[in-house]
């Protein structure tokens, strides 16, 4: 019995791994998407808008199944056409990380875009006047200020992302939800195992919330707040 709990606890490591890897993907896509939307180049703006609209209109699970099952067949068909005999199986970890990252990249795009728009234009202009390049301006001036505006939306996205990782169990990744289901099938005591898994998720979201609130306080130092 205790072995099952230990196994689920081990699965928690994988949950953390999937969520952090997916977060990294989504941040990169979010920054790229926000840059595209604000670039003013019609092609990029349309592409980014199509990306955020389509992704946010379809359930995560459907996209995940599409990437996992569709991706496997698509890759194998491609290999066949190239004349290769080999077949590939998409690893559920990568399918999960890429799909979740791709989906939350769309949400991050909107968060980052809003944050970038909140920074007064004069800040970047002043940096240019000092002779900084675009990259330097972003790293030294825009990015640090963006963190403050982006953090509330980022926190929401991150909490939803953590909970979305449970869906990866449905494409066979052995993270804690998957292991809890296996354990309950083997022992016929599902209530205890699912409650344990729920508790682990609650710990993960609570710790995240605490850390991000601290971070938010740190980055909001010196920001004036209006008093009613």
């Amino acid at each position, binding site marked *: 019995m205790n072995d099952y709990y230990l196994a689920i606890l081990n699965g928690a490591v994988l949950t953390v791994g999937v969520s952090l890897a997916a977060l990294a993907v989504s941040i990169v896509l979010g920054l790229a998407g926000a840059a595209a939307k604000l670039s003013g180049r019609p092609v990029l703006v349309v592409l980014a808008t199509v990306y955020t609209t*389509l992704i*946010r*209109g*379809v*359930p*995560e*699970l*459907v*996209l995940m*199944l*599409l990437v996992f*099952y*569709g991706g*496997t*067949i*698509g890759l194998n068909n491609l290999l066949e056409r190239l004349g290769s005999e080999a077949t590939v199986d998409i690893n559920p970890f990568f399918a999960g990380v890429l799909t979740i990252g791709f989906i939350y990249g769309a949400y991050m795009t909107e968060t980052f875009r809003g944050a970038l728009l909140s920074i007064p234009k004069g800040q970047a202009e002043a940096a240019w006047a000092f002779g900084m390049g675009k990259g330097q301006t972003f790293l030294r001036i825009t990015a640090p200020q963006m963190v403050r505006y982006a953090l509330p939306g980022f926190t929401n996205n991150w*909490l939803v992302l*953590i*909970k*979305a*990782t*449970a*869906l990866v*169990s*449905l494409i066979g990744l052995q993270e804690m*939800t998957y292991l*809890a*289901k296996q354990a*309950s099938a083997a022992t*016929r*005591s*599902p*209530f*205890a195992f*699912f*409650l344990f*898994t*729920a508790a682990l*998720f*609650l710990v993960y*979201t*609570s710790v995240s919330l605490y850390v991000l609130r601290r971070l938010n306080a740190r980055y909001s130092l010196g920001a004036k707040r209006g008093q009613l």
Partner: protein
Amino acid sequence: MNWAIIFEAQNLALYGQGIVTTLGLLFSSLAVGAVLALICALALTGPFPVLRWLVGAYTYVIRGTPLLIQVYLIYYGLGQLEWIQARWDSVWPWTHFKQPFFCALLAFSLNTAGYTAEMLAGAIRETAAGEIEAAQAYGMSRWQVLLRVVLPSAMRRTLPAYSNEVVMMLHSTSVASAVPSMLDVTSAASRVYSDYYLPFEAYLFAAGIYLTATFCLIGVFKLVEQHLLAYLAPRKH
């Protein structure tokens, strides 16, 4: 790509059945969830610390755990409890716990209630103090102020956030496909996929259905908001 198979009569019927289940699940869980959310929001903003704490703990747990696990807990988990096992063959409300649709509905209702309650409570707390004072100055009782002034305005101001929640719930209903013998749009797609080995077509068609439903819901909410939130819109003249 082989779209002809998707458009064969029996497969379209499968998706049709899926749409009925998905929409049925969505609207019934939203209805039950809205009633629960209203009660919870009143408790969250009410004068009783014990209730505030209890409901706060409820929304915290609901919002901090994945919906999939909540569904599993209710569908697989509750069956383990002897107390329910003793009742679900004969005693009335408990007989429903053997039905997948009821279990999914219960999980979704409890879930959306948790999120909606917090939104509504936030809107109630942000009601302008002057509105409440004015109502009190007219001699209205606590309940009269609540029913005539606070709730109508708070519910309207919750609409934009609530429309997000409704779209989220539409997408969440796809989790029902994890319950065996539930035939929603996602499980219809999975069945078409496994029957014909056509993952792209099957899931893309499902994605198209969800996308259409999402846009319809957003459109309806926009219309309703224009009507009900007209007094908050910027002046046009």
